[in-house]
């Protein structure tokens, strides 16, 4: 069965494929013989962390996944929820961190392409893209290069396919200096009847490769180390994937047409581990056997081995199971879109996963054991003492800087912190208005998209404060969900369900696995309390560089439903004379705050408490007030605290600016910096022309709510009275700090001046 020229299976080759001795023994036992080189490649891909979730699966199983409206939970290409009227929303988030660290433009672009395919293979037309990005400090020219490359990559791909990029968040922190996070989320809309699952069915049905030809892109790094393979070693080196959004657009239209046509039974993206994982997973879901002939796969380069064809990660390719006898009809649809289709295999009754090269068998596994026999680990979990010490530190023990005597200085400094400042520099590069459904685009608390043919809209948002998770993973995990829920609620939407992208370090380190377990537990608690089940997601581990792991960053992608378009609510102040209300507690907690990080370069203290019962009540009362038509604007109070939230309400929208007069003097018991910049959770800044009725709703629900001031559309200051002092911040200064910071930093060096600094960073 081995092919001529295949390298011998040695301990060194096994190690290069990332298999432990125990895993190799497991493989040997499954086959009852020594695997071929091709089989070793297949297993190394399928049992990799990325495909198998071998360290994360047992923990992920603890998450809630059900609700009456969940049509598809975890385990498919994307999750799907019903939104009524026979319509459903498919959505998923996925990471492309390592490819983006190596080549930011193509890495981010192909990340967008992959997640788009995951959504349209469910039968959904993509209607929105979101991105959750983490970079190091923008003071580093290399970080500016990564930031600008990633933004261009996201924009060029999404813009070309014609899917609006409408929301997301971008955070800058030295913890991500050498390991940026690039998580892309796609949201699609479908008729419930068109929902299709990637499940191979029907003995004798043909398996068809569709779309781009297969090249040597992204093949597992193990291959080029083998001498026996290398006629030309350069040609065998793993290569970055290059995205082709034009082909993606054709693939999108053709796939949706194929699904509608009824000629096919299943369709799946050839994503990570390419043909191997797509075919093995579809077979496993359908509990059938498959046989694939690699010699029939259209290739871009000559002389590709079965190993390379199976493991190639060339982009813009799909695997389709068609109905037997419908091959011509499938081909016709693809030809209309200038795409090629090749029958490369068949669904078979025999419980076997078989790969041939012509008639010669090059790999064969029994039944679906390739997927089901994958190892599963529960590594040690132990909190790091250093983090426990950090958490115990008292934020108020950090002495104030002398400049802080002028609170406007602090406010400006925080508003111009790149994590808080306006990200328009990036959002202006994303087409956010194509498809004409975008009611609220980038920059709001969440994006809002109308659903044509109904009076409804959906709100979408990604969120995670990695610093909180770092300091206390349980609480940080809860907050990530709660804040995303609050964000969509601020636009008038009921939070429905989440997808998540769990970005962590090396799970075999006990302190990292502790973070993972605890953060997932916290997320699960919040999802249960807020009624937002998990419908799927992605785990990205080993986000480490020699300087350590990134902050544990479980990014939450939240989808909410707005029942009536008249409920859509904006974040910024709208009407002169409206009362400003603070829904939620004052609190004043400074642990893990942006204030400490930006003003004092300190990451310490316990993150703010997260009382899930209160969070639920805050969201419920907010929605009750919005639905009663009492709310002019609603803005979540998060990074930078109340003062930043108020400043954003005043100047974030350049076409709708307001001043305000705010009185916080009743909270004299809390230090001023806690009142202004504390990040106590469960708080929303509301403006309303009928404050008494909002106060009534809050009182009835048992949620603290206080009238704290008045909107002044014609004033050019944000005035805040404290117990012992008063500040009058000119809007011009706030506007400058908020809007001009990132453009001015990004104009410092032109793009591409830093290729020389790129070389030392390699994929893990």
């Amino acid at each position, binding site marked *: 069965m081995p092919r001529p020229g295949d390298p011998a299976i040695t301990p060194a080759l096994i190690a290069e494929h990332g298999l432990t001795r125990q895993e190799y023994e497991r493989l040997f036992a499954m086959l009852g013989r020594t695997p071929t080189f091709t089989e070793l490649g297949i297993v190394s891909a399928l049992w990799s962390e990325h495909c198998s979730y071998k360290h994360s699966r047992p923990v992920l199983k603890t998450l809630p996944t059900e609700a009456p409206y969940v049509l598809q939970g975890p385990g498919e290409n994307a999750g799907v929820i019903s939104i009524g009227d026979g319509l459903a929303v498919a959505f998923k988030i996925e990471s492309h961190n390592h490819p983006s660290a190596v080549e930011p433009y193509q890495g981010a672009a192909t990340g967008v392409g992959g997640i788009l395919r995951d959504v349209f293979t469910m039968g959904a037309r993509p209607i929105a893209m979101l991105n959750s990005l983490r970079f190091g400090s923008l003071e580093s020219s290399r970080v500016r290069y990564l930031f600008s490359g990633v933004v261009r990559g996201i924009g060029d791909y999404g813009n070309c396919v014609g899917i609006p990029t409408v929301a997301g968040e971008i955070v800058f922190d030295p913890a991500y200096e050498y390991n940026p996070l690039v998580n892309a989320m796609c949201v699609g809309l479908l008729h419930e009847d068109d929902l299709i699952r990637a499940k191979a069915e029907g003995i004798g049905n043909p398996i068809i490769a569709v779309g781009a030809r297969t090249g040597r892109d992204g093949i597992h790094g193990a291959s080029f180390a083998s001498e026996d393979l290398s006629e030309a070693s350069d040609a065998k080196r793993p290569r970055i994937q290059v995205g082709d959004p*034009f082909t993606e657009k054709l693939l999108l239209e053709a796939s949706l047409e194929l699904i509608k046509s009824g000629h096919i039974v299943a369709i799946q993206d050839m994503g990570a581990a390419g043909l191997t994982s797509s075919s093995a997973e579809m077979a496993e879901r359908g509990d059938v056997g498959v046989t694939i002939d690699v010699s029939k796969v259209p290739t871009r380069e000559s002389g590709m081995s079965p190993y390379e064809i199976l493991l190639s990660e060339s982009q813009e390719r799909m695997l389709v199971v068609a109905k037997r006898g419908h091959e011509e009809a499938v081909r016709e649809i693809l030809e209309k879109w200038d795409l090629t289709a090749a029958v490369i295999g068949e669904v078979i009754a025999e419980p076997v996963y078989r790969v041939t090269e012509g008639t010669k068998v090059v790999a064969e596994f029994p039944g679906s054991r390739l997927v089901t026999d994958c190892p599963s680990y529960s590594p040690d979990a132990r909190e790091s003492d250093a983090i426990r010490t950090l958490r115990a530190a008292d934020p108020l023990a950090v002495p104030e800087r002398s400049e802080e005597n002028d609170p406007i200085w602090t406010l400006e400094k925080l508003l111009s912190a790149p994590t808080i400042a306006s990200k328009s520099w990036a959002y202006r590069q994303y087409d956010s208005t194509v498809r004409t459904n975008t009611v609220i685009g980038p920059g709001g608390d969440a994006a809002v998209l109308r659903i044509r043919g109904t009076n409804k809209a959906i709100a979408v948002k990604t969120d995670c404060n990695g610093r909180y998770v770092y300091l206390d993973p349980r609480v940080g995990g809860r907050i990530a969900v709660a804040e995303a829920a609050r964000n969509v609620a601020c636009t008038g939407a009921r939070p429905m369900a989440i997808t998540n992208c769990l970005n962590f370090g090396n799970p075999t380190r006990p302190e990292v696995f502790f973070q993972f377990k605890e953060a997932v537990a916290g997320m699960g608690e919040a999802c249960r309390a807020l009624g937002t089940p998990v419908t799927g997601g992605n785990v990205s581990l080993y986000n480490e560089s020699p300087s350590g792991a990134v902050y544990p960053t479980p990014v939450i992608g939240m989808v909410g439903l707005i029942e009536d378009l008249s409920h859509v609510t904006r974040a910024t102040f709208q009407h002169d004379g409206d009362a400003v209300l603070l829904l939620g507690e004052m609190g004043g907690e400074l642990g893990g705050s942006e204030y400490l990080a930006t003003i004092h370069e300190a990451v310490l203290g316990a993150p703010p408490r997260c009382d899930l019962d209160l969070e639920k009540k805050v969201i419920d009362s907010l929605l009750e007030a919005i639905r009663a038509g009492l709310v002019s604007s609603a803005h979540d109070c998060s990074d930078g605290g109340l003062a930043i939230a108020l400043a954003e309400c005043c100047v974030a929208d350049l076409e709708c600016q307001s001043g305000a007069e705010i009185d916080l003097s009743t909270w004299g018991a809390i230090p001023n910096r806690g009142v202004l910049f504390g990040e106590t959770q469960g708080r929303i800044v509301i403006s309303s022309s009928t404050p008494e009725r909002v106060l009534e709703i809050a009182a009835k629900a048992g949620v603290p709510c206080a009238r704290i001031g008045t909107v002044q559309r014609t004033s050019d200051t944000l005035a805040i009275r404290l117990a012992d002092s008063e500040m009058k911040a000119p809007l011009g200064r706030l506007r400058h700090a908020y809007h001009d910071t990132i453009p001015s930093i990004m104009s410092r060096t032109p793009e591409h001046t830093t290729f020389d600094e790129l070389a030392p960073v390699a994929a893990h």
Partner: protein
Amino acid sequence: MKFGIVTFPGSNCDYDAYHAVTEILGEEAVYLWHKDHDLRGSDVIILPGGFSYGDYLRAGAIARFSPIMQEVVAHASSGAPVICICNGFQIACEAGLLPGALMRNSHLQFVSAQVRVRVENSGTIFTNLYETNEVLRIPVAHGEGRYVASDDVLDALENDARVIFRYADAKGNISADANPNGSERNIAGIISEGGNVLGMMPHPERACSPLVGSSDGVRLFESILARVAA
């Protein structure tokens, strides 16, 4: 009135144009496939935005050779209305339906934003329901929208009142700050010598409902109906 909306491989605003015509105007619209030679009886043709053929060589350079473009050119030569938006404008320039060319934005970045344009000539079949000097709020979304032409061509366009839209600020002032892409003389839209082919970078079909930010684009489509009805 029947609108024919051309779908090239890579078009992505065809759907938005379709909805503007059918939902907002309440008129009939059909998609026209790039490989066909048939305008299916359309009275008005729309070349929509997108990235035809990926815009891989030059924006619009490959699309102009599509079979359907021969029919579109013939339709234009007969004096019938053709609206060329964004990528459609680029294709029209490549195909010689309109003078000049659209080059990479001066700041080298894609720009997606709500911009203001000033109506320069309200006497055309596309603008007769606007007032001259009226300021419209319409989104742009393009990487290659910087309008360039020789000075002779630019002068001729101005002299013949064929510059229809210019980028302006909210008060209608023409300034470099209001110019999102570095277009010469802030030009956002022009018409052909015959007055029946309109090319513009901003997207009127995306400005057809206050819900999505503006309804200033509606009257552009209504102008055509009004002129034909008159």
